[in-house]
């Protein structure tokens, strides 16, 4: 009896779950479909069957120079992430393996900086950027994104590093490994999976950051967030092109995100939920 109930239960759960999933995914799906419609089709009423043109993608590139904000997004998100990792790895290592009484306080304090509302420092940051000539510069935005995400990077690395058993590092020490060798031969290989997921999640966060990237850039350093936001005024007639631009803006990160969903939970809850 129990087995029959299970199968029926599974089928009804499957149907329900797929309906929910498709509703939630629908706006993304519809954007992708619209991106391969012609402009008249795009506003011609609900239709899931596009004519399948790729012209919008070409137009977005030729008319709006899509590649430039795309490259900016890549440079900013990857650059800021690598910079954050370089700064954070030694810190997280020290906190995980040589904890002191204050380690916990330092970690909590780092987390608290993340809670400072961005608008609260908008004015001084804007003025500082203006005075130092950093407005609309890739360097300025990279530094900004690095600092914004640094606490999360330290935290994620810390939770990963803490899972490496201390006995293994002691074993390496007994085996004659110096600090440098300990890092190169033992710690790094064991930490690589954690570092990789930290990298992935941070690229996603940096790619989608939409306050500072929009406010501190205009044209030269503008990443995709600012590029897409600039589409907000012209309505109606450009939907297919907007969809094509949107699809290209979210596709790479969507795919990265699918790979990192497990680490996402851990990273965004600062290890509170695993």
């Amino acid at each position, binding site marked *: 009896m129990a087995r029959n109930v299970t199968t029926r239960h599974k089928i009804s759960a499957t149907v329900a779950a797929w309906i929910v999933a498709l509703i939630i995914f629908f706006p993304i799906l519809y954007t992708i479909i619209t991106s391969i419609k012609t402009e008249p089709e795009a506003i011609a009423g609900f239709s899931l069957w596009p004519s399948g043109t790729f012209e919008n993608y070409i137009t977005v590139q030729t008319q709006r120079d899509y590649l430039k904000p795309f490259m900016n997004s890549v440079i900013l998100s990857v650059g800021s992430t690598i910079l954050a990792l370089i700064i954070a790895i030694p810190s997280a290592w020290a906190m995980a393996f040589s904890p002191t009484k204050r380690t916990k306080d330092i970690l909590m304090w780092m987390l608290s900086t993340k809670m400072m509302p961005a608008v609260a420092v908008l004015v*001084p940051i804007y003025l500082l950027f203006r005075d130092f000539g950093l407005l609309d510069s890739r360097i300025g935005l990279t530094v900004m994104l690095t600092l914004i995400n640094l606490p999360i990077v330290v935290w994620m690395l810390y939770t990963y590093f803490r899972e490496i058993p201390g006995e293994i590092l002691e074993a390496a020490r007994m085996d004659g490994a110096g600090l440098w060798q300990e890092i190169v031969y033992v710690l790094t290989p064991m930490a690589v999976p954690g570092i990789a997921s930290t990298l992935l999640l941070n690229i996603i966060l940096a790619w989608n950051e939409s306050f500072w990237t929009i406010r501190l850039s205009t044209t030269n350093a503008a990443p995709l967030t600012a590029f897409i936001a600039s589409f907000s005024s012209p309505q109606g007639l450009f939907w297919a092109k907007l969809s094509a631009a949107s699809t290209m803006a979210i596709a790479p990160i969507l795919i990265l995100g699918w790979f990192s969903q497990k680490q996402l939970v851990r990273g965004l809850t600062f290890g509170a939920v695993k």
Partner: protein
Amino acid sequence: MATQNTKTLARLMMAPSVLLLLVWMIVPLAMTLWFSFQNYNLLDPSNVSFTGLFNYQFFYTDPAFFQSIWNTLVIVGGVLLITVIGGIAIALLLDQPIFGQGIVRILIISPFFVMPPVAALVWKNMIMNPSYGVFADISKFFGLRPIDWFAQYPLFSIVIIVAWQWLPFATLILLTALQSLDGEQKEAAEMDGANFLNRFIYLVVPHLARSITVVILIQTIFLLGVYAEILVTTNGGPGYASTNLAFLIYRTALLGYDVGGASAGGIIAVVLANIVAFFLMRAVGKNLDR
């Protein structure tokens, strides 16, 4: 001695990140606090003077201020309500055995990876547009008059968009928590004669309590600062109908060029965020002792 060296080295390794964050936190915040007591307008930068609490008073007496606080609370509260309840429901559903669970998970998590401007524009144009949007098409199909979402229900529209972005986050975290529930515990409860409802109330809800707290607190931090979604949809309007505190500060600072006023608003935002942060830190901090 050996470990003494290690300790010194550990401090050195921590120094860069600690110093950077310290500077990044203190310098701008101190400047904001300083500006908030100044009469400082970017259009007239030579004429800066001390005004005491005038900026706070100005901000406080501005009717837009209270509306923006209210709107902030509505956005935070509305999104939390939708995402937590929806998140629990969907997490419970996904915790069942399902065909194609991997794909379902991927579909449901996807909105979280969509950058806010894209999410807002897609909803604004493709879904909620009163003439050509999918909602309008559905209304027409049933012979109803389409709703002009952003004109009639600007705040609610923004809540829907933001909730769509955060629902995956809540779902994913609650699902993770749900899956960490000990299977033997469930079996023991079944042996003890607890039905599904009883198991949900006495086993699942207490188990999820901490994760729900974490979801609420983390989302609140982000929801207090909703910005891009407002910028590309309603631009805060009509009037101040969909202006939250973050957006009001941006308007005051970069559209009104009023550095002093915006800074006063910023300090108020810091105070608000700190109240939430206090509780979040306690929830996360407890976890550290484990």
